[in-house]
């Protein structure tokens, strides 16, 4: 018993480090509570903690997949990679928050605390192996997200966004639980490992009822990754939330949601029974509609934040295509996609954040003529936007390529064509922003104050992976090639 616990703790070390980090951050925050103090030290502490977490995750990567805490969680390289993406995303969002004026300076360390807390939820979700841990993961993720959304306390939109998020989250959590309860009732356990063999045994009406329950269950997951039709909250929340929070939401909860969606899909629907067929069909529809709705709606957006929000819905649609195929290469493609998306999103939000801080708005007009004021920044933004649109030689293209290739390997040509057309739509709105930046003349040529030297260096540094991952992705694919799911 002790041995099992010891082993579990070992495997679970990254999460535990995060928990400790969160506590430490709370203490640190208490020491820096005066108005106007510089919170850099708190951030450095958080960075240190996250780097340690990342290090531990990398060390875990090689380990054989195993369950911990009596099968409550499972540690496998797939989950670990997803967690790694989340940690990196948190790290990025953290420093974005540090430089952003969108987070009130005396709430900066609260952001750090909550970000790490959300990360813990996400990590729990990524390795959830029973319904309870799954539920807890989602709730930790959600509840802290509500708070983060309304972090801009003086701003009514922020509060409204938080409220909507909370209400919507509550409802979907309830619906999901309702579904879970029926699954539990029909299959007799909350442990995935015990449920899975029983799924195949069900017949007739039971099967249909189980599927209905799974659908209710899917509502919870779909809401987390903002898949259609559970995406409706996300533009509002993205718009209302401070930019660093938005950047954070675009990465961490999404990857956590994807992780659990992949795990559930692979566990329950890997065969070719009637249930699997319906599930795959469902995901087909969800993927196609999510992409389409996300991309089409993004066209008319003037707020860049909102544009990126809708575009992230589009990207989620692409990622779901990797789930549809229900095989390992699909997972691998999603992991790569996540990696690529992480850097692209961070750069895009970062530049938006700086401009938003300077002009107080994130409308496309503030990007006008950026090339004449900050050529390097404009080029970086262009690279990232091209990458998001899926242009080679940037990582976004490779991500898209991988996803398309897994779908085509399964011969889902229809889905592939829909994805292809969607990326044309995507290109259209990204290009509009590039057009604004590069083709239009700026009213003024004076530089934007927010682009300090360090910020610029950081942005360039974050863009380098976007390019490099698009060209030298052999090694990275090798890494994610180890993304074995721990399946019973």
């Amino acid at each position: 018993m002790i041995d099992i616990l010891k082993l579990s703790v070992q495997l679970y070390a990254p999460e535990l480090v995060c928990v400790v980090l969160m506590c430490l951050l709370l203490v640190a925050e208490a020491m820096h509570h005066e108005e106007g103090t510089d919170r850099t030290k708190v951030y450095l502490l958080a960075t240190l903690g996250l780097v340690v977490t990342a290090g531990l995750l990398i060390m875990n990567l090689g380990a054989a997949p195993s369950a911990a805490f009596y099968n409550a969680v499972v540690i496998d390289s797939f989950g670990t990679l997803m967690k790694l993406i989340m940690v990196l995303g948190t790290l990025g969002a953290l420093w974005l928050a540090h430089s952003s004026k969108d987070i009130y300076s005396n709430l900066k360390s609260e952001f750090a605390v909550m970000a790490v807390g959300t990360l813990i939820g996400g990590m729990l979700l990524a390795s959830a192996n029973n319904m309870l841990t799954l539920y807890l993961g989602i709730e930790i993720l959600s509840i802290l997200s509500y708070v983060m959304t309304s972090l801009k306390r003086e701003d009514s939109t922020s509060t409204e966004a938080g409220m909507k998020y909370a209400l919507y989250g509550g409802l979907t959590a309830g619906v999901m639980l309702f579904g879970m309860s029926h699954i539990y009732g029909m299959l007799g356990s909350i442990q995935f490992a015990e449920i899975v063999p029983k799924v195949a045994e069900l017949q007739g009406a039971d099967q249909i009822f189980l599927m209905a329950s799974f659908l209710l269950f899917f509502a919870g997951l779909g809401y987390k990754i903002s898949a259609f039709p559970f995406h409706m909250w996300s533009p509002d929340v993205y718009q209302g939330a401070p930019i660093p929070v938005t950047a954070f939401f675009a990465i961490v909860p999404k990857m956590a949601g994807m992780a659990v969606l992949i795990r559930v899909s692979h566990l329950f629907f890997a065969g070719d029974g009637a249930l699997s067929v319906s599930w795959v069909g469902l995901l087909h529809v969800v993927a196609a509609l999510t992409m389409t709705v996300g991309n089409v709606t993004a066209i008319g957006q003037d707020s860049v934040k909102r544009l990126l929000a809708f575009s992230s819905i589009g990207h989620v649609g692409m990622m779901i295509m990797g789930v549809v195929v229900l095989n390992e290469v699909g997972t691998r493609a999603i992991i790569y996609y996540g990696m690529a998306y992480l850097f692209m999103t961070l750069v895009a939000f970062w530049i938006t954040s700086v401009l938003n801080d300077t002009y107080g708005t994130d409308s496309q007009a503030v990007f006008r003529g950026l090339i004449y004021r900050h050529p390097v920044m404009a080029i970086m933004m262009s690279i990232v936007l091209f990458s998001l649109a899926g242009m080679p030689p940037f990582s976004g293209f490779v991500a898209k390529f991988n996803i398309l290739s897994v779908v085509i390997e399964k011969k889902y040509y229809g889905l592939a064509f829909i994805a292809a057309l969607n990326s044309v739509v995507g290109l259209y709105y990204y290009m509009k922003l590039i057009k604004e930046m590069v083709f239009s003349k700026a009213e003024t040529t004076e530089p934007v104050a927010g682009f300090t030297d360090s910020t610029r260096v950081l942005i360039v540094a974050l863009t380098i992976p976007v390019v490099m991952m698009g060209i030298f992705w052999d090694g990275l694919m090798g890494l994610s090639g180890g993304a074995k799911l721990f399946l019973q």
Partner: protein
Amino acid sequence: MISLASYLVISMILFVVGLMVMIARKNIVAILLGIELVLNAAALNFVAYSKFVTNNLDGHIFALFIIVVAAAEAAVGLAIVIRFFQLKETIHIDEATQLRN
């Protein structure tokens, strides 16, 4: 005789009522209450299944967790609602339409 079916019917009613409340009521606090109803429907299900079908403790424990998490959620939700009230001086849901396309 209280059978599983009775529990399930009740939980179903709770679920539907919760949804109706969420959809139809204008008061945000009421909506939060609707969420509680939905969550309780699920919790009731878990307990009922645990007793009548599966004969293990999973359901009970799950129900406990639901109660705890619901409390946390309600706390956060109410905090945000209060903030909303401070800014808007109303808790009417129709006032929350600032965010749109």
